[in-house]
């Protein structure tokens, strides 16, 4: 084996390849009629990463015709790496010059480059037929999604059946952990958002109501819209963004790291241990958060009404039960429970669909949040239509 490159004798901390002492790569002409091209300096990626050095070399090469009967003398080159060799080889248009002199070490590098340089494989562009085919695939794909989602709901029902038959074997610790995570830790953010929305709504409506002298209807407007509609939807959107993404990422990471497969091998059904506790936790936590949000919003509205149109909090609290029938509260609670179940199911579905790579994880999380918010609003519209006769005076 040839010995390694002879190192400089001096023992120094500053390396030969340091920033300042890269030998400038350049080419010169010499000999009779300038028939010999002599390359100097260090032809390395490090040297070429300096704009100045690369400029010198590329100008020098541009002035040197590649195919003429030139002799190349590469012996003065101090360092030649694969990038430097590639520059030369591409300049020679992929063929050895007729006359060339170089060190054996540099020759090996050049031979490597010469052997491996090839044309890049063409990327196949999809044809029109391919595009049509992939578009028509959307139909069956939607069917598969519907089928898998339905299967998940069915599995959930079966799991709940199992839980009722043998409650002592249920994943109660998981459930309480999820309740804390989805419910308790969501309280500050939902309260803040609810409060601000209540204030904004009160200020906006107060202006309009004053025009008609109907300031006292503020209680009806705030009470109905916040308790029946805005509270549950706001809370659901926040929870979808907060907990939905967390569920998808959590289950998705378990999928990427093969934890789900490990569970299956041990005979632990992922539906029973992962999906069901999350769905139940959100089904319980969501109505509570929704009420909490409505309360915060009403409080904000009450303060704003007091400030904007001198509607006293005492009157507000007295008028509220008369303005908002109790059935609205039940409707809001029921609606929120459905939102919670849907958010958890959508999030679990996308988590289970994550493929074992990181890119898919990011896409799955985004899709989960967007889908669950859309589903929440769709279902809310459905509730509005179905219960249009409930809860009004």
């Amino acid at each position, binding site marked *: 084996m040839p010995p*390694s490159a002879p190192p400089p004798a001096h023992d120094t901390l500053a390396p030969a*390849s340091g920033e300042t002492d890269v030998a400038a790569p350049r080419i010169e002409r010499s000999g009779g009629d300038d028939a010999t091209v002599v390359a100097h300096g260090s032809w390395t990626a490090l040297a070429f*990463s300096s704009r100045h050095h690369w400029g010198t070399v590329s100008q020098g090469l541009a002035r040197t015709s590649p195919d003429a009967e030139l002799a190349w003398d590469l012996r003065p080159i101090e360092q030649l790496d*694969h*990038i430097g060799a590639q520059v030369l080889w591409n300049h020679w248009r992929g063929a050895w010059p007729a006359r060339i002199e170089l060190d054996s070490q540099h020759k090996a590098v050049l031979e*490597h480059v010469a052997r491996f340089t090839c044309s890049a*494989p063409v990327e196949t562009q999809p044809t029109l037929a391919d595009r049509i085919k992939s578009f028509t695939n959307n139909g069956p794909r939607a069917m598969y999604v519907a089928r898998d989602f339905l299967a998940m709901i069915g599995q959930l029902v079966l799991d709940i059946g199992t839980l009722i038959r043998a409650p002592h074997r249920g994943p109660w610790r998981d459930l309480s952990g999820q309740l804390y995570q989805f419910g308790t830790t969501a309280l500050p953010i939902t309260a803040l958002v609810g409060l601000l929305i209540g204030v904004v709504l009160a200020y906006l409506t107060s202006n309009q109501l004053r025009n008609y002298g109907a300031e006292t209807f503020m209680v009806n407007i705030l009470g109905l819209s916040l308790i029946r509609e805005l509270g549950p939807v706001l809370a659901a959107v926040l929870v979808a963004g907060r907990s939905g993404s967390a569920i998808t990422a959590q289950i998705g990471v378990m999928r990427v790291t093969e934890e789900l497969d490990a569970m299956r091998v041990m005979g632990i059904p992922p539906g029973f241990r992962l999906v069901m506790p999350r769905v139940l936790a959100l089904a319980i936590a969501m109505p509570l958060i929704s009420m909490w949000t409505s309360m915060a919003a009403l409080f904000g509205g009450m303060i704003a009404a007091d400030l904007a149109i001198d509607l006293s909090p005492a009157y507000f609290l007295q008028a509220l039960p008369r303005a908002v029938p109790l059935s609205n509260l039940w409707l809001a609670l029921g609606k929120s429970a459905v939102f919670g179940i849907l958010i958890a199911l959508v999030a679990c579905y996308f988590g289970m669909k994550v493929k074992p790579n990181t890119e898919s994880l990011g896409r799955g999380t985004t899709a989960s949040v967007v889908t669950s918010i859309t589903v929440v609003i769709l279902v809310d519209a459905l509730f509005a239509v179905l219960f249009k006769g409930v809860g009004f005076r």
Partner: protein
Amino acid sequence: MIDAPAADAPRVVEILKLWTTFQSPEGEQVVHRDLDLTIRRGEVLSLVGGSGTGKTVLLRQILGLEHPARGQVTVLGQRPGQLGAKGAAKVGMLFQHGALFSAFSVLENIALPLRELKLLPDELIRDAALVKLQMVGLGPQQANKSPSDLSGGMIKRVALARALIMDPPLLLLDEPTAGLDPESADGFCDLLRSLHRELGLTVVMVTHDLDTLFDLSTRIAVLADQQVIVSGLPREVIAHPHPFIREYFLGGRGQRAMEALHDTPAGHAPAER
């Protein structure tokens, strides 16, 4: 085996009185205590040690990804992590799991450090990346695949090609042959040997693969008791009486790998080419 460089070759990496500590619930945990290590140009140094002795942490400190609690690390005359945009031309790193960018194709991954210079022509960059792809033993037909379509061994090779794209003088390898089949591992050793010969690379690797260890190392540094307890030629290290070394090299697996080492003429002639 690769010939060791002269004893007075310039120092590429110098670690002086290094302390690494981790905060854990039980209190401060010391991983390295007054650790000294000098790596000279042309060396192939293997870091060996039990689990949790901070081999990978040491590599990360050389890269500047982590900072020691005390002590000094000097890489190529500079503090690590201050190599700047040309860093890829100076230090190459092969991460244990490849760390390929999942958004890019194989070829784009390999070409990224060159492309980031925004200086060299596209054609040159593409050719250089294709050359590196084939040097690590993959065909050009793999160039347009995305990292998620590759097997574990292929990811490792692509990651090596990316680490090598700018032919850095210092190459750090974290478990380079873990997860490779024996043939790929041999190919990897051959590749590293030829690169070392042609470019005078300095290599620092963490490995548990005793075959690779004996095949490539010019020096082995053993980490135990929070320090480098011994560093030297493989046969010097094996002779050291520390209990960890006796267990590590003279256990069943060590014995088998050493048999290969002692059969040097027969065992190594074909691999040398």
